[in-house]
């Protein structure tokens, strides 16, 4: 119990600071790495608005085309379930809200714990479906390498350990809570340097794409 308490304190203290620092510096560095490449100024006569179309695309792109819904059903459904689940667990679980409040001083209402519990189970299931699908679907299998499976694991672990901690499956509790926080730190450290960076660059990519449609007068 002593040791696990020390572990938890270390995880919540120095390890947390280091992980957050790497995450923040990493994300900013990666964004600069991208944005500093710049793009050529455009001279063709625009048919429509660039900026607002780019912004609209950031939202619109979340809705898939009907024929893709049919053809990519597993990826889309499991992908949506996972992302929505992740959002609920991260921002609507009361202990997480309390943690955020302790850092930035803002809080909002959360969902009842049993609801988040159910969401967690569904999310874990969706992630397992995505893993299996990645391995058996020929296109995804061909595209996948070490990074794809590694990032899957790094995403899966915080959810699994969080769920185990909530249910007090592991004794002593500080140990599993510490492991949960450590797994989140692993995710934070890995994120800027892998495809998980899409959590940020997706906004850029959608904007660039939508801006082109806007400029060309395409009602996407």
């Amino acid at each position, binding site marked *: 119990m002593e040791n696990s308490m020390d572990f938890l304190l270390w995880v919540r203290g120095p390890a947390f600071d280091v992980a957050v620092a790497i995450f923040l510096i990493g994300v900013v560095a990666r964004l600069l790495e991208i944005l500093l490449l710049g793009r050529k100024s455009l001279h063709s006569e625009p048919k429509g608005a660039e900026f607002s179309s780019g912004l609209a695309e950031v939202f619109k792109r979340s809705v898939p085309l009907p024929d893709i819904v049919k053809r990519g059903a597993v*990826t889309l459904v499991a992908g949506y379930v996972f992302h929505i689940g992740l959002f609920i667990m991260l921002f609507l679980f009361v202990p997480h809200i309390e943690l955020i409040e302790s850092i930035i001083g803002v809080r909002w209402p959360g969902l009842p714990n049993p609801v988040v519990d159910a969401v967690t189970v569904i999310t874990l299931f969706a992630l397992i479906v995505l893993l299996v699908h990645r391995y058996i679907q020929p*296109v995804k299998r061909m595209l996948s390498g070490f990074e794809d499976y590694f990032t899957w694991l790094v995403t899966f672990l915080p959810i699994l350990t969080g769920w185990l901690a909530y249910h007090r499956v592991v004794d002593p509790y500080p140990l599993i809570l510490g492991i949960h926080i450590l797994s989140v730190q692993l995710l934070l450290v890995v994120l800027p340097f892998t495809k998980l960076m899409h959590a940020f660059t*997706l906004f*850029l990519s*959608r904007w660039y794409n939508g801006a082109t449609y806007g400029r060309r007068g395409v009602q996407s």
Partner: protein
Amino acid sequence: MSSLSLERGLYDFKAAIDAPIASFFSSCVHCGLCAEACLFYVETGDPKYTPIRKLEPLRRVWEQEYTLFGKLKKLAGFSKPVTDDELEEWKELLYASCTMCGRCSQVCPVGNDIAYMVKKAREGMVSSGHAPEPLVGAATRAVKIGSPMGVKWPAVQNQIKHVEADIGLKIPIDVQGAEYMPLLSSMEIINFPEYLGALAKIFKQAGITWTLASKAFEATNAGHQIGSSDIERELVARVVDEAERLGVKFVIGPECGHAFNAIRWDGPELIGRPYKFRVLHIIELLEQLRAEGRLKVDSKVTERLTFHDPCNMARKSGIVKEQRNLLGMVATNFVDMPDAGIHNWCCGGGGGANSMEEFEHLRLKAFGVKRRQLEAVEPELLVTACANCRLTIEEGLEHYKMEIPIAGLTEMIAEHLKED
């Protein structure tokens, strides 16, 4: 195109990478959904045709040159360099199995514009000597002779004589200060000369002044197709120089998708300044004339007909309702195919793909999706507004023994114009 080498190719890959491309590669999560939008994957089921995979050489150059992690990996000797053998293998992926139709760019959940990246990647394929032979030939002819199909001005003059005799109207040539300067595509000059006659009839009824330019009649841009910005720029500049010398107000893109894209969107970026004239697609101009009441028809097509939206027109230039309004004027029984408009499926022959004869089997296989679209509406007539789509579709229909006549929209309108 002298001294082609892997070094030059890699240099051009590196030079092609801008903020959007770095963002696109950073965002890709390998979800594979782009494959589901690509007619070459959908029809063959072969995962090698997955759109984002076609960018693998470019992606590695980005990773090795523009990311901290990739640079470290390269220093430590863990990164796989791009080789000549690899690029030779990628020729099929970046040219024969990609028409740059841009459907993948529409479905990518993170918003990657994959077609944009393919166009940019082709630059390095050209300078490394891995562009397809037929396209290299077309580009060389375009630069030296003035047309990718080797059409010279006397051949055009010859067609003009026939057209003039046919319709009894004079085709204006090199008229200083005319308002409109239409461009032609090689394909139209050789295969569909009716287009020129149609323009003359329509412009006469609408009462507008126009001219062909003997030094810039050709709209086809082999530089755009092969992906060489130097060649594309040179061919665009010929049109720009003549249009500005003649002082025309509008240059009119023909019924040829990529040619319009090159002059409308790429051109000003390539020459680094806006034009002193505006560029319209012929269908945009016709719709404008229709809306102003300057086009009058005295008969209509009564057959059940449908319209194939060329990618460069609809998806790349937002021209969708124009052709439908025009069809409303000239046809009584128009039906849209499933997925028509900006989500239409490509004919399978754009972006230079149908110049590669060795991949005809692949194009015909990919045509399967067009076949299903057509079977869904069973048209008696298929209308389109791109000579290249038209030729590709004709080949596909013949292969699948489907007897559907094809017409160009401009000619169809000209045929039904009210006689004065």
